[in-house]
């Protein structure tokens, strides 16, 4: 019900999505796209700040590239990344194409932190935050992200499940548009218009289930204005829940990914794609998966810790920024990075990376082992006796 109501309220500003885009925006002609600090190629945000930062210094996913997120086990962290990516696209007014899943998936996109989850509203506090951001050069913008994110969150009262249009929100299409938004998994994003997000069904009986996907995306790109940015999303590629058995035949899958790659390259300033693959069903040790990886531009692997289900903080806790959420929930491995690997460069930095998902953020950071539990006495002893020991050694 509330979904419909908000839609009605929004019909005015959002019935013509290109119009807020065309309104004078100071730092970028197309919302959600900015030049890479490395070489100036257009990049767009994945909706996850720390993931943007990982992508070989481009501070975003370079348009014309695809990102494959693989996940071990039965968790759905990759799905969270995918939803952020979709939600970011919706907020920025990009066209989002989702393959395989139904519209329910679109209704479960996370809402904006601090905002009502709706697009195109004005509010005093939001403008303030954004203007402050404007003063900082955009390439340093991410440094201030953490502070603004939490501040915005605190300003919002607790009952977020049904975001009210009158609550203070971010001004997305007014003064400036942030490159990457913060999303709250407990909220729901209200989809502005029906045209923003489209769902392509996979025919369960077709001999080649992929044939229709690229056709519809190609058609959508061709029929949209030239400055529209498109995002293609394929959740759980090859999962038997969505794809018929014939999908995993190399003769169907690989030509599809090949044409997708060609399509991305052809629209190298207008399109990006993100796919997820369940590794438990299709292990990395098989030739087919290796070819899937070869055909995607960036490949990340999520390996959740087996115990993380127990310690995972409940998503509904009101104090979302507690210590517990910083606890790593799994390891993240980079196998391939967009742009850089094509040139011949190796994977990311030297650090082991861990990720943690909390209500408000998906954080990727260098992994360091926590102090061994139950070893506090030894640690304390070390700390107390440290000076003495030092003196002893220096003697």
């Amino acid at each position, binding site marked *: 019900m509330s979904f419909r109501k908000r839609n009605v309220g929004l019909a005015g500003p959002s019935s013509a999505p290109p119009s807020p885009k065309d309104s004078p925006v100071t730092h970028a002609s197309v919302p959600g796209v900015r030049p890479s600090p490395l070489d100036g190629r257009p990049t767009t945000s994945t909706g996850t700040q720390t993931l943007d930062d990982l992508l070989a210094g481009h501070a975003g996913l370079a348009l014309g590239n695809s990102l494959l997120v693989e996940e071990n086990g039965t968790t759905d962290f990759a799905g969270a990344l995918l939803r952020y990516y979709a939600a970011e696209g919706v907020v920025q007014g990009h066209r989002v194409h989702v393959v395989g899943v139904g519209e329910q998936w679109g209704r479960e996109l996370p809402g904006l932190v601090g905002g009502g989850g709706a697009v195109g509203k004005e509010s005093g506090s939001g403008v303030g935050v954004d203007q402050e951001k404007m003063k900082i050069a955009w390439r340093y913008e991410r440094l201030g992200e953490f502070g603004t994110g939490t501040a915005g969150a605190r300003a919002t009262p607790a009952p977020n499940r049904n975001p009210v249009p009158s609550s203070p929100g971010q001004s997305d299409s007014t003064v400036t548009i942030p490159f990457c938004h913060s999303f709250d998994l407990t909220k729901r994003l209200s989809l502005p218009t029906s045209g923003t997000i489209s769902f392509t069904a996979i025919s369960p009986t077709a001999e080649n289930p992929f044939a229709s996907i690229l056709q519809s995306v190609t058609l959508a790109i061709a029929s949209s204005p030239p400055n529209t940015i498109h995002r293609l999303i394929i959740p759980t590629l090859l999962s038997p829940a969505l794809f018929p058995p014939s999908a995993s035949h190399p003769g169907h899958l*690989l030509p599809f990914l090949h044409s997708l790659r060609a399509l991305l*390259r052809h629209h190298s300033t207008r399109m990006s794609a993100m796919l997820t693959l369940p590794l438990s069903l299709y292990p990395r040790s098989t030739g087919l998966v290796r*070819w899937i990886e070869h055909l995607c531009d960036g490949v990340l692997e999520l390996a959740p810790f087996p115990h993380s289900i127990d310690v995972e903080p409940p998503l509904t806790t009101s104090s979302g920024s507690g210590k517990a959420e910083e606890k790593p929930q799994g390891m993240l491995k980079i196998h391939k990075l967009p742009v850089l690997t094509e040139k011949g460069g190796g994977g990311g930095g030297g650090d082991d990376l861990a990720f943690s998902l909390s209500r408000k953020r998906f954080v990727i950071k260098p992994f360091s082992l926590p102090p061994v539990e139950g070893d506090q006495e030894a640690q304390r002893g070390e700390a107390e006796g440290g000076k003495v020991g030092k003196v002893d050694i220096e003697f």
Partner: protein
Amino acid sequence: MPSQPLIPPLLSPNLSAHPCTSLTLLTSTLGATTNWLVLRFVCATLKSKGYGTGHDCHITQGDPFDQRIVLVSWLRDGAWWRESGRKLGIDFQRVHLIDALSNGLGMGAGGLADVKKAIMKAIGSKKTPTGGGNVILMLDGLDFLLAATGWEVLGMLDMIGELREHVYSTIIATAADMPLSQSPTTPLEISHTAFVMSLAHQARSILSVRGLDTGVAKDVSGVLRISKGAEESRDEGDVEERECLYYVGSDGGVKVFERGA
């Protein structure tokens, strides 16, 4: 590091001097691609002064300084090659680029015959009017076709053999990841293994790149191994087996250095 030479000195003996009718195999892995190597081959070939250790060869007539290239790429688009090549000063007038990523060469109904026809046409167009000229054929990602179409490996090798008869020398870049050929069980893995193995037997030298075995480092992109193929010439013995490290900067510049250097 702008002062780097375009072609790393450690590598230059391997990049130019390919004898007539030789096959050079480049193998890559997921995190370590051979694109930079292919580009260096193009660059070195266009800059080289005639034949390397070439001897009299039935194809070499015409101007010995006139080396031309036919580059067919199934995994990377033409714009990418042009853009990357421009930084190296590659003159694309002398390179016939077939963008098989965009045109889906070989994926249609015509299959292998289409591929052969397109490449033969390109070779023909790059030959000088006198009938000579040295065309060097470079195939990037031909193994993708094998994986995606499920063609017979023998047919593919036959085609390569036939194409090689019409060019001065051939360079083929394929993937050689462990999952593709470690314990081949699926048809895809079996044919990939057979394909790469056969090429390795036909090759004069094999240049393989892989990630660093000990993990990721900031100043090393991967390991380059140069080894002799089974067809390494009986009399020349000029392929020096070695293993070195390389680093590709974000600007595309390449450094090749010995371990510990």
